[in-house]
């Protein structure tokens, strides 16, 4: 649009130079009334690119915007591709290790999976096995395939719904920590019921996708003794949820939000404010 105006302006200038036109519509030079040809690589209108001389930086900015506008669908496809790649990366991390499962049994496969994610594993009667800062870990646990896994710490890992396949085979798991896992959501919680016989401790603190709807399916875990549901941003009413979960699991100690949270100022706090108007 701006270029069209410049075109018009220039024509008027061209007409105005030299002799005075007899009337508005007569000019000394013939007007090149060519329709502006917009090709994909537009720098200016054909035939006028020399006459029109915008400043250097404005031209660069305009041509970058023009480039992006001309290649809109390409840019969109690139963004979709990058998004797909991210999703595929998470899926790749959660792939099942069937060859290890067949050779060494489900406990070793589950332990290998967790260690690969950057988590820690504790076998019954042994110490915690953690990967070092480089991500490497010892493969000694493959030598004792019969020993069950007792505790798993998958905090901060990229475990998701499909990755839980590896964990659900650990029939004697007693303690599971899934703190701050970005892909653990309500659907994953509904999958935990096969661990009901053995699971005694579960920690879900800080998972951004878990809401009270997923917590409702924890009632299958009747042997649970410690449950940590603090700091769940997607839960709409943390205090009320805490009460309801405590009612749902009577034998379990539920750590989470304080039930007074969200109740507003209590009477003692109000009188305190009145007594000391100047904050300490």
């Amino acid at each position, binding site marked *: 649009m701006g270029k069209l105006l410049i075109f018009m302006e220039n024509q008027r200038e061209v007409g105005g130079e030299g002799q005075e036109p007899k009337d508005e519509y007569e000019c000394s030079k013939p007007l090149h009334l060519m329709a502006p040809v917009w090709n994909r690589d537009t720098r200016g209108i054909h035939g006028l690119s020399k006459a029109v001389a915008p400043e250097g930086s404005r031209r660069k900015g305009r041509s970058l915007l023009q480039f992006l506008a001309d290649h809109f669908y390409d840019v969109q496809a690139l963004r979709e591709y990058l998004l797909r790649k991210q999703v595929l990366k998470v899926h790749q991390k959660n792939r099942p290790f069937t060859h290890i499962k067949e050779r060494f049994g489900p406990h070793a496969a589950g332990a290998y999976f967790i260690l690969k994610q950057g988590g820690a594993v504790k076998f019954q009667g042994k110490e915690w096995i953690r990967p070092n800062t480089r991500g490497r870990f010892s493969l000694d646990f493959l030598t004792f395939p019969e020993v069950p896994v007792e505790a798993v710490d998958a905090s901060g890992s990229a475990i998701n*719904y499909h990755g839980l396949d590896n964990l659900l085979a650990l029939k004697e798991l007693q303690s599971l920590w899934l703190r701050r896992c970005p892909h653990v959501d309500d659907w994953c919680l509904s999958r935990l019921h096969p661990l009901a016989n053995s699971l005694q401790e579960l920690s879900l603190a800080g998972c951004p996708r878990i809401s009270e709807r*997923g917590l409702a399916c924890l009632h299958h875990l009747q042997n649970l003794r410690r449950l940590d549901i603090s700091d769940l941003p997607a839960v709409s009413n943390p205090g009320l949820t805490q009460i309801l979960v405590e009612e749902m699991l009577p034998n379990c100690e539920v750590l989470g939000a304080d039930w007074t949270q969200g109740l507003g100022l209590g009477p003692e706090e109000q009188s305190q404010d009145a007594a000391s108007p100047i904050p300490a």
Partner: protein
Amino acid sequence: MLRRSLQLALGRDVLGRGLGTHRGGSTLDWNGKMSEIKKKIQSVLPGGAWTQLHDTSYLPPEHSDVVIVGGGVMGLSVAYWLKRLERPRGAIRVLVVERDHTYSQASTVLSVGGIRQQFSVPENIQLSLFSIDFLRNINEYLAVVDDPPLDIQFNPSGYLLLASEKGAAVLESNVRVQRQEGAKVCLMSPEQLRNKFPWINPEGVALASYGMEHEGWFDPWSLLQGLRRKVQSMGVLFCQGEVTRFVSSSSHAETPSGEEVTLKRVHEVHVKIDHSLEYQPVECAIVINAAGAWSGQIAELAGVGKGPPGTLQGTKLPVEPRKRYVYLWNCPQGPGLETPFVIDASGAYFRREGLGNNYLGGCSPTEEEEPDPENLEVDHEFFQDKVWPPLAQRVPAFESLKVRSAWAGYYDYNTFDQNGVVGPHPLVVNMYFATGFSGHGLQQAPAVGRAVAEMVLHGNFQTINLSPFLFNRFHLGEKVHEHNII
């Protein structure tokens, strides 16, 4: 270069027109275009048929490859899968015609929103299993660049079906079929029921089946909006209007036994604009009937069922609207967070709603007590007489409750066998059905959409075989008997 490498990376056909701006028109019919341009110029010149330029953006386009009658979850699902499965990308023009953009009477949004695999017909179980997979990965299927991710608020709390002595054997065989198809369902005895859910009174219950995973309820409105947003980004056009007429042509054919049949083909769909006499004839190749409770009327407009009764020409589409009530009540001492979607042996059902001890529930009336589907007025006496007593007997805490609100919605009720009708009509060859689900349409919509799209694009069902649900069964009398219809 970038485009070519992206094409290969995304696995699309190298000849696909997926990327790059649309250059020119999609056909090379130069003569046709010239005659159209001449016609338009003639109408603009004085003496022509065209009035002054005015805004016609509310009118649907004059041509569309597929016209989907009905913009609820079923119609939008078919539109989504058509655009997703088409090759090459951008090949098919789809138009969705919806009479009411506020969806005030649409079954989708008035639904209770449950999804279960506890059916007796294997095809229903498979449809439901795919749909729950779709819902779980909804942000991969329905992702739109720059829009926030969808949250359908799924409660994975499961369904609990209770059966009396009479129905216990049927329930057990159903559970066996469900387990074979891959559903995670377990059977419970009355003692186990009492241990697990202390608020239930298991008197009269012989057996119960409980879905552990992949069952629950969600928010149908957010699914509808998510589908709408995605489908619009894929290039499907929407139009607010009512389909009033189908213009079709007939041709004669002979069956192998020598009988003469009349095959019809719909050429134009007349879409009438709201509050006006104006209509737009839309030329189309395929019509999809996803009109829900009003599918029977749409089918009649297309000429389905015009013939002597007992013949294929005379077989109407047996889908009619049936009114169902849903009540929301509050019971402070009621069941807690673990409450599944409970369906009593008597047919009454309820589920938890939110965290404040609120519950949604209802009951399907018997054939004799069917309310008049003329309007969506709620009958509160129905709750007092038919819904409350069985629920209060099953859950003693419900003896004291307070009804907060109620609403009514339509089932697109298939009077023949209460299962969906999917696929083309044998005589009106380019009309496809996706309707008649009698209360379980929402939970099967993603899978049915894919099946209809496969039928339209490939001519047969490729993933889930829904041949038992074709239209022919109405003429042949083959009922698909489903036990677990609520």
